[in-house]
Structures are given as C-alpha cells and as structure tokens.
C-alpha cells in the first residue's frame, strides 16, 4: 500500500495498535514529538498493511484535553513521592490491620505484558494475595477455562492464516466486522478470492459481519451449546467422527457424546431448541461434517454468558471429535477483545491464575514461583474475580483497590452498584492517562500514566503473536510508565530490591525465564528462547507467535500439529456438556438486553471519543429494536426510549431494525458519564456470572423499555466541555468543540437563564424567545467569536443541526450572520441584499446594483422594477448616486 506523504517525509517508527485483539502493526510518522500520520505496517503478520478506521485515526486521538499531567490526591496535584507515599502507607496500614486480602488490584487488557508482570508479581508474591483481577474477566475468562479444560493450557491453537485458508468458517457470537475489522477484511478478501469458501454466522442479531455470510443462523440467545451438542450428535450419526484422532489424542469422547445426544438427539431437536429452521441447521451441520477445513471463530457472544465455559467446550468438542484442529484451515479460534488480554493471561494476571500458565491447584507450581520470585509473602489460593472483588469492596472486606488503565464504574455489570462501592472504599487508586474517567472521578489518588506512543513494551494478540508496542514520544507532564509506577510503589512497600528493573527488557527476560522454568511441554506458554534477549533485539522486536523455544526459535504458527496437548498425558479432553439457558428470563413486559461494540468506538470512548471523525458513524447512544417491538411498546423511531433495570436507566435513540429478533434489543456498550447523562449499558446488566470462570452474562439481561416522555428537546453546540443541566444529554466531539443533544421531561422556567447560567463567563448573547414556549434559541459570543449555540423546542421538528453551524464555532460572526447562527443554516437561497437603501420597500444596495447592471438606467426604471424610491422618496438621492 502507498504510505501517506507525511509518512515518507518524516521519521517513521513501527509499533502496534492499542485497540482490539487483532494486534495490527502500525507505521507512525513522527515530527516534533507528535504522531503526524499513521499507516498499516506492511511487514506485520496480523494486518499486512491494513488498518481499520480506529487504527488509522490514532494520530487524531493522541492529544486529549483531559490528559492527566500530574498525580492528583483528593483532587489536588501533588508530586510523585507524596502520591506514592500516601498510597503505600494506606496499603500497609490496611494489610497490617486486615490482612493482605483486604487489598486488591484491578488491571486491564490495555496494559503491556511487562506492566502486567510486575503487578502480578507484587500482589501474589509480596503483598500476599491473589486479589488481582482484570477486565479480561469481562471478555475472555470463559475461553481461558475452556482452553485449559480441553487442551491443558490456555492456548489458541491456530493463527489468522487459518481463517483465510479454511473452506468453512463459522463465526459464533462474533461481529468481526465491527470488533476485529482487519481480521474481517482478511476473511472478506479470502472469500472474494475463493467464492466457494463458506461463511456461516451464528448470532441472534443480523450483524454487519453477515454481509459476507452464506448462511446466517439467528439463534435464540444463549443456545450456542445446544447447537454444538447437536452438531456432535450429528457428527456421530453421519460419519463425521475422526475415530483415529479421537482414539489416539483424546479422552472422554463417549461421555461427551452421551451428554450431547441425551440433550440434543437430532437436527429437529437442535432447530427447536435454538429456534432455527431445521433445513438451515442441517446445512451447517453438513458443511461441518463434510469439510476437513473448518474454523470456528468465537468471541463475546459465547464468552459473556453464565455458561460461557461450557459453550466454548461444546464447540471445541466438535473440533476434537472430527480431528479439525492443529491443521491449516482447521481449528477452533477464540478471538480476543483487547490488545493485550492475551499478555495478561500469559503473565497470569488474573485471580484464578498464578503466573505463566501456572495455577494455584498445583502446590509445586506455587513453590516454583515462590522460589523464582524469592517471594516473602506468597499467595497460596485464588483471589476474588472481578464481580466478587467489587462485591467485597461493597461489603468493606476489601478496603483498598488500585485500578489501572480501565473504567469499571462503566464497564462492570451493575455498574451503578460498583460506583457506589468505590465511593465508600477507603482507598481508591487509579492510574490512567485520562484524569476524568467515571472511575477516576471516584478515586482518592489518580496517577498519570503514559499511553500509546509513549509506553513501551510487548503485547500479544489473538493468534499468540507477541509484538512490540513502541514508545517513541516523550510523555507529557509527570506521566510515568505503569511498570515504573508499580515498581516505585513496591519500593515504598519495602520490596525495592525485587523490583529494581532499569528497563522493560529486564522484566521481559524474567517473564520469559519463568515461562520456561521446569516447563517440559507441560505449559503452553513458553518463550524461554527469549530469556536472554539483548536490549537491541528487544527494541527491534520482530513479531513472533509463541511458543518460542530452543526447538522453535522462530515461533510457532499452529499448536497441536502432532496431536500432543498440554495435559499430563498429552491427550486433549472432551468435556461432557449439559447446555443451559441464560439465568434470567424476561417477564412479559421486558425485553432482553444485548450489549456490544460499534464500529468506530473503543471501550469507554476515553480515547476514540475525542476524535470528531470517529463519532461520524454513530454519534449518540441508541437502541436497536425490532419493528414489532416498536409497535408493542409504543415507541417512535428516532425518539428517545428508556431501558430500565437495577434502578438504572439507559437512554437511547430508537432505531428500527429487523436485524434484531423480536423481544431482544441491542445497545452499544461504550457510552458513559463523560459522554451521556444516563446511557451506561452495563449499569443495566445483572451481575450473573459463569460459575466456573466468573465471566458476567453481558448478553442477556431482561430490562423494561418505555418511550421517554420529553417536554422539550434540543441541541447545544459549544467550545467548552460542560455537563448540561438536563435529564438527557449526549456529547458529540466536534473539531472545534462539542455538540450536545438534549431532552428533558420538564421545561425549565426560562430557557434563556437555563443556558446562560451554564456559561457564566459569556455576556454577549443573542436569542429568540417565544412566549408560547414552543422554541428558544440563543447564541453566545466572546470577543465576537461564537462560543455557544443553543436550540430548544417542545416539538421535535424545529431543532435542526447543520454541519455548517458546527463549523462556525470559534469563528468571528458579524451581526448579519448572527441571524443565520440562530436559524442554524447559512442564508442560502436568498442573496444578501447589502446595506438597506429603500427602507419602505426593503431594497438593499446589492439588489439595486444588480438591477442597474441589468439595464435600469434611471430612478424611475429602478422604481418600476424594484419599487425602491416610489414611496417616501427619501432614498432617491442614494439611488441617483448608485446610478452614477
């Protein structure tokens, strides 16, 4: 691909994208400590030059106005020493009084592997608790346990090439078109080149991914495991079992088949249970049975479930039974959400893991790690997983929590409850690059961390590919790397000598060494060949898929090619699955809430929300809902509706969508208190979790839905970021400011004072008032430059938004253009008449000049044509002057 000109002209650097789990290589052009352009890295195996819109906007999201520049203690800036002393003293006091289980870390798939490693080491080896969990709990925990149960290790068997080389690609609960756009592009291209390749999508919604699908199965939510149990039965009944593979490389097939057959004896049962057409189910079962090359991709639709682990194993069972694993174009494929969820899993930075694919279930693992770390306070049992961790905070059992690079006040199920729990927690520490996330606002201590383009270290993507996310810009203000902050904190706790790394590579080497320690093919994650990597090679790290061992120094594209797994006997395990429906079923007046990503936003928008371009696709929280449900609940397309559960409300604009099943709505998960008054989807999600892995059921919450009865609506375009005093608002970033959509159930007494009170520093206003209270408009100026435009109406028709208006923000506006500002549109269609000449007939100078050009040669002729001068005659001298 052609690099943008800027990339050719400037210094370039290769790094990795900070968004999704695809893990694309990015070539960034740098000038004056700024990223001036980005392009896909042609050499990176994940994307081979491609980038999605989020990735290609990386340079537009680097300077946030909300960037945190110094440590903040109770809202006041302090120096680093003061900040860390405060946090460490609190931690120490709490540990002394209440034991180590009274403190916790909550990490993020946005952290780099090196950050993760030191955090995990500090908590489990030195503080002495496994209360360290991460937002990966919300997205990958089910797949992790499914992998461990089946393969003996948390390892994705295939690589991205398998998705291109396969003959049948089944995507289950995975909207790659939005969530993993570059992987989707690779699949679409493969399909274009080989139209015979079949693509099947299993998803209750008809998502954008279905555009390239041959078959879309809109199954009943949560019935994936029934579908795959049915497939296992079908394989057994239709000669689809690879008996050799089953006999040689697996255990437990018979029990699993019996369980599957007992629950789903045939295609008819499968179709019935999943609410699908029998013929469609049969077609997909046939495709699976009759093709050797089949890949089943699965992500959040499978994982975010109260039975996510079982769903994962149900589909892995089918691959094991048919031997479709460890071969090009044949594998189950869990695709991760975050850029480094995988890195966290490798490090073991989760409450139910220990370190480097070792767990608490084996005393020898604990001993090995204890020795390796020279740990004085080794944790010996699993800690609290995310939902339980925040419950323990709520109950006061955990008294101090350090949250890094994530926003649980928005993203946890029952987020409103999490918010309240944090409000009363003794010590909430947050390290983040943004100082005013919903979570940071609840913190006692906020620490400024480096972000993409500044931080430096490794990440692992969905196909086990480790690459370097490179730091090449100087950090602004006092910002520090997460690993540095953690190590300095460890020092304050008195463990300095064990955290005296001078560079990321020191941590990486230790991490690599631990991965190989006594491994002997017992643990999937092994990068022991890199334990002595020199700094130069680390700085130029070429992407590698693990394992990276002496036997495979160039990495490993596919696992299990020899049929050997990471279990003690080397055999994969079938898991008998008793498929279960989601825990909560909707009452008659409820719909099922499904949540997920949109194309152009990332997580809680703290980065992507700052780029106007990325709000162009979808700029406001919405509710996708079936036409019949719109009718049933008395909703109106384009109006606001309210979803309610848990005493929380989600406001969204009603979008009619036949892509939804009846009784089910979809809402984006991204909006939060920084971007909307009350549109946090996860606040409505019940904290129902998978009993094995603790992952919450984000895809299935019964909620009430009703139209929002608004007394007025409107919009506000302004240069300053404010929080409108309004029941509903949604913030849309513009190039020169912000736009807010507004609505409220009650009209303010006086719109003029409502808006003016929110901009007390502005005193030059122009407004239009209607004593009938049907509409109001106002614009505010500072030094003649437009600062605010407000438009309100009691009916929904009169408030219009125009891009033109948004472009006027910050511009100098003359008295005449102020009319246009209030109208919201340029005075198109009618020419500017120029200075008024004939007051009687309102004829302006430009109009007269035009008539003169057109042949009017006398005052009389002008009067004949334009009437000017024919009433009071006061303008005749001016007309004469214009004629001369």
């Amino acid at each position, binding site marked *: 691909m052609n690099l943008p000109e800027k990339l050719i002209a400037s210094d370039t650097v290769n790094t990795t994208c900070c968004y999704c789990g695809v893990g694309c290589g990015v070539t960034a052009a740098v000038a004056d400590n700024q990223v001036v352009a980005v392009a896909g890295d042609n050499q990176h195996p994940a994307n081979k030059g491609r980038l999605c819109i989020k990735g290609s906007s990386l340079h537009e999201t680097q300077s946030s106005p909300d960037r945190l520049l110094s440590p903040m203690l109770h809202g006041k800036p302090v120096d680093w020493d003061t900040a860390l002393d405060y946090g460490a003293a609190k931690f120490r006091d709490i540990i002394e009084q209440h034991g180590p289980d009274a403190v916790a870390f909550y990490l993020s798939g946005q952290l780099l592997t090196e950050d993760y490693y030191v955090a995990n080491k500090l908590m489990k080896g030195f503080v002495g608790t496994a209360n360290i969990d991460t937002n990966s709990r919300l997205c990958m925990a089910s797949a992790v346990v499914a992998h461990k149960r089946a393969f003996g290790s948390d390892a994705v068997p295939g690589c991205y090439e398998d998705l291109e080389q396969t003959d049948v690609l089944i995507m289950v609960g995975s909207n790659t078109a939005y969530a993993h756009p570059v992987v989707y592009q690779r699949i679409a291209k493969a399909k274009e080149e080989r139209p015979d390749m079949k693509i099947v999508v299993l998803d209750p919604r008809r998502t954008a991914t279905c555009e390239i699908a041959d078959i879309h199965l809109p199954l009943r939510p949560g019935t994936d495991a029934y579908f795959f149990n049915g497939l296992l039965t079908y394989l057994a009944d239709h000669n689809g079992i690879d008996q050799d593979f089953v006999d040689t490389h697996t255990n437990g097939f018979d029990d699993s088949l019996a369980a599957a057959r007992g629950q789903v004896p045939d295609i008819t049962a499968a179709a019935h249970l999943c609410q699908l057409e029998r013929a469609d189910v049969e077609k997909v079962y046939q495709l699976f049975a009759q093709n050797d090359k089949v890949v089943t991709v699965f992500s959040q639709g499978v994982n975010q479930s109260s039975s996510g682990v079982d769903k994962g194993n149900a589909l892995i069972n089918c691959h094991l039974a048919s031997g479709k694993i460890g071969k090009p174009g044949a594998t189950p494929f869990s695709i991760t959400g975050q850029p480094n969820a995988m890195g966290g899993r490798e490090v073991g930075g989760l409450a139910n893991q220990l370190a480097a694919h070792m767990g608490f279930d084996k005393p020898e693992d604990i001993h090995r790690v204890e020795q390796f770390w020279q740990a004085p306070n080794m944790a010996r049992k699993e800690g609290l997983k995310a939902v339980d961790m925040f419950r323990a905070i709520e109950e006061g059992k955990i008294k101090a929590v350090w949250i890094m690079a994530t926003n649980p006040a928005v993203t946890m199920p029952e987020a409103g409850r999490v918010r309240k729990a944090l409000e009363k927690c003794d010590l909430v520490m947050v390290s983040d690059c943004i100082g005013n996330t919903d979570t940071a606002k609840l913190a006692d201590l906020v620490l400024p961390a480096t972000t993409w383009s500044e931080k430096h270290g490794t990440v692992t993507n969905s196909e086990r590919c480790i690459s370097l996310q490179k730091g090449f810009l100087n950090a602004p203000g006092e910002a520090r790397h997460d690993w540095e902050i953690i190590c300095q904190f460890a020092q304050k706790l008195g463990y300095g000598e064990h955290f005296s790394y001078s560079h990321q590579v020191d941590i990486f080497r230790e991490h690599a060494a631990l991965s190989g320690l006594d491994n002997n093919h017992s643990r999937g994650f092994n990068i022991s060949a890199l334990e002595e990597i020199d700094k130069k090679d680390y700085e130029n790290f070429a992407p590698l898929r693990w394992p990276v061992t002496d036997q495979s120094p160039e990495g490993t594209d596919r696992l299990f090619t020899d049929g050997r797994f990471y279990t003690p006997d080397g055999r994969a395990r079938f898991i008998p699955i008793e498929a279960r429906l989601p825990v909560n079923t909707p009452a008659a007046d409820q719909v099922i809430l499904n949540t997920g990503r949109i194309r152009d936003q990332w997580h809680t928008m703290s980065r992507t929300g700052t780029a106007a371009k990325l709000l162009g696709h979808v700029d406001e929280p919405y509710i996708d809902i079936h036409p019949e449900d719109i009718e049933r609940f008395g909703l109106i397309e384009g109006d606001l509706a309210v979803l309610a559960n848990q005493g929380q409300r989600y406001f969204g604009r009603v979008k009619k969508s036949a892509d939804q099943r009846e009784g089910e709505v979809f809402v984006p998960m991204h909006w939060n208190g920084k971007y909307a008054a009350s549109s946090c989807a996860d606040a409505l999600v019940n904290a129902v979790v998978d009993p094995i892995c603790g992952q919450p059921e984000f895809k299935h919450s019964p909620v009430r839905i009703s139209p929002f009865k608004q007394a007025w609506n409107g919009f506000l375009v302004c240069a300053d970021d404010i929080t409108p005093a309004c029941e509903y608002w949604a913030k849309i970033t513009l190039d020169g400011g912000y736009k807010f959509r507004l609505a409220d159930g009650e009209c303010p007494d006086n719109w003029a004072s409502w808006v003016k009170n929110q901009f007390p520093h502005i005193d030059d206003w*122009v407004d239009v008032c209607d004593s009938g209270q049907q509409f109001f408009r106002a614009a505010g*100026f500072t030094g003649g430059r437009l600062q605010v435009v407000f438009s309100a109406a009691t009916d929904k028709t009169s408030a219009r938004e125009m891009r033109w208006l948004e472009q006027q923000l910050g511009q100098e506006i003359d008295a005449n253009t102020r*009319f*246009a500002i209030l109208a919201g*549109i340029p005075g198109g269609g*009618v020419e500017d008449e120029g200075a*008024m000449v004939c007051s009687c007939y*309102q004829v302006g100078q430009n109009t007269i000049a035009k008539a003169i050009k057109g042949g009017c040669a006398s005052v009389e002729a002008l009067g004949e044509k334009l009437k000017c001068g024919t009433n009071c005659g*006061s303008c005749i001298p001016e007309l004469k002057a214009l004629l001369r």
Partner: protein
Amino acid sequence: MAAGRFLDELIKRGISGFEVTVIGDERQGSYNRIMLSPVLAGETDVPAIIGKPSSWYRDQGIRFVSGVQVKAIERAQKCVLTTEGNRLRYDHLVLAVGSRPAKIPAENQQLDNIYSFRTLRDVDRLLNKARFHEMHGRKTDTDALVIGGGLLGLEAAYGLALKGLRVTLVHRSGWLLNRQLDPIAAGYLKRALEAKNIEFMLSDEVARFTGTHELKAAEFKSGKHLSCKLCVIATGITPNKELGLAAGLKGERGVAVNAFMATSDESISALGECVEFKGDTFGLVEPIWQQCTTLAERLCNNIKLPFENNPVPTKLKVSGVNLFSAGEFLTTDEHRELVYQDDKAGIYRKLLLRDNRIVGAVLIGDARDGQDYFSMLTEKKDVTEIAPFLLMGRAFYQTNEQPDSSDETEAA
C-alpha cells in the same frame, strides 16, 4: 408635498384639457418634507430635496402662484381670495393645505429661539442658529431642547446633535415613539441615540419657558430646570382645516372627504394632512399617495377608485437607526410573542401573534423583512410552521416553506 404628488398623477393622465393653477404659501416649489431632517443633519442639502423648482411648473404649463396664502373660499362664486386680495376663479378646487405643528400647553412660547420643525424656513432658521450658537458664549445646561419623542422630534434632535450641539429631548410618555414602539424597542432606540450625544428626559413636560426676549431656560412639570440656547417643538401636527371649515365645508378634525376625496361641496376636493376620512387624519405618506391617485383618476378619467385607509406600517430610518412598526405593538396576555434580541448589535425584532397569525411587528436596528411581515399580517397568513425561523429573516423562513405568492406580489 401632497400637491406635488397630485400634480404628477394628473400629468401622468394628461392635463392638456385643463388649465391648472397652483397656489402655495412657500416660495419654493414642492419639496420632500421628509427630507428636512437630513437637511438639518447636513446629510443632504436644500436643492437636493426640491422635487419641483419653479421652472418645472412653467415647463408643464402650470401656473404657479408662490408665496401667497388663500384667505377664503367663496364657494358661491367659485372663487378663492388670496392674502394679497386677488380673487382666482376655479372650476374645481383641490385643497392640499397640509397641517401645522401642534401646540403645547407651555407658557411663554413666544420667546425668541423657540422653533417648530415643519418647513424649509424652520430648518433654515435652525441651521443659522446652530451655526452661530457658539457665539452666544453663555454656559447652559444643554444647547438645544427638543420637545417631542415622536419621529419628528427624534429627527430634529439627531440633526442638531450632528451639528455638534448638546441636545436634550423631552418626551411626555415613558418611552420614545410610544405610538409605534414597545418600551423595550424604545430602549434600544434610546441607547443608540444616547451614543450620539442626545440626552433624554422621559415622562416629563415643559411647564414654562423663561427669559425676557430670548429663551433662557425651561421649567418642567417634574420641577426640574434646564438652561438652554434654543428649543424645537415637534410634538405632532394639527390639520389646516380652518380654510375649508370657514367656507362651510363639513368636518371636525379636518376637512371631511368621502372615499373619492370629495368634500361636502362637489366642486371642492381635498387630500393630504388637512383632511379627515371616517374620523381619521393622516400624517404618513403612503395613504396620501393613494389619495392622490384616487383623486386624479376621478378628475381625469372619471373613474371611481375608492380610497381605503388600510393599516400602514411605520418604516423609517430614525436618526440612523432602522425602524419598522406595523399593527399592534404592545404585548398583552392574549398575544404569543416572538422576540429576537441582540443587545450588542442593537437589534430587536418582535412579532405579535394571535391564532398563529401575525398581528403586529416591531423591528429596530435591522428593519429588513418588515414589509414581508406586513404582507403576512394583511394576508392573515398562518405562520405555525415557520415560526422558529420568522425572526431570522426571509432568507431563513422562505427556505422552510413552499414558495408562495407573496414573493411574486412584491416583485410585481
């Protein structure tokens, strides 16, 4: 002025069959009285506002008797008697004798340097006085006192202020132009004029003037006292009805006419500021121009085109500030009021609606679109749909509705 316009209308229709005589008090021919303020302000000069010099009458074959007043009408003989004692016979007499400045009830109005503001002669004397005011050398509270906050008074005040005089304007009402504007609009106007060095005394009246021969000061009903060098009284007009009524023509406030401008004597017609039609008198040009057309049609073509006293909007550039007022202008509880306010630019626009129809418009600072609002007002157009855009001007509300006929009407 009305006579001049009437002559134009006659000539347009052909006067070859008539012998026309014009008798006028003023020496000049017909001039545009509305332009007196710009003359006073120095924005234009006397020749520029004289529409019909003596030569014009000659060229048109019209006998022009200037500097002469008619003392009496002798209807039986169909004669008029001039102040010079001449009798002129007529077949048909048209009275276009206009009006004179209204009187105020203050004492000592006979003092020197108290002027009215009506004729070129008034303006000439004021200009002279203004030019020499510095020669008086006397320190006074203000240079010129202007009485009357109507259109004329404001224009006089503005003209004098432009000449460099310190001007104080006294107005009986609580706000300026109280027959055309609401208090808020008047406030905008006041602010604009204050910026031009005019001071205001509202809700007050002159009780008496003081001085021996020359004006020295004015005493006010409020008890205030203001020394000054000159005073202009511009409180309104009184129709010159006396000539007609003395001859036995009917009328109370003016000489009564019917819809065809005929008085109670079929050989005498009347038009302009001296007439009374259905109880109304006239001060604005628009209806008077219509009267000229009606009368010319009747006399030349014997066509009866009735004069209708339709509502007339006030559209003026008062002292550099554009103004428009039509229909109702004071907001009551029964109105829906739409208001545009731009304090900084000095723009205020108000529309009063009843049943979603415009019944009044007050514009100040930017009077464009006034004519459009007035059309909507007379057509009783339903403005429900375009209400939010109405005040922003036609460029905006016209893009928000289907094109209608009002546009074409105006262009026609």
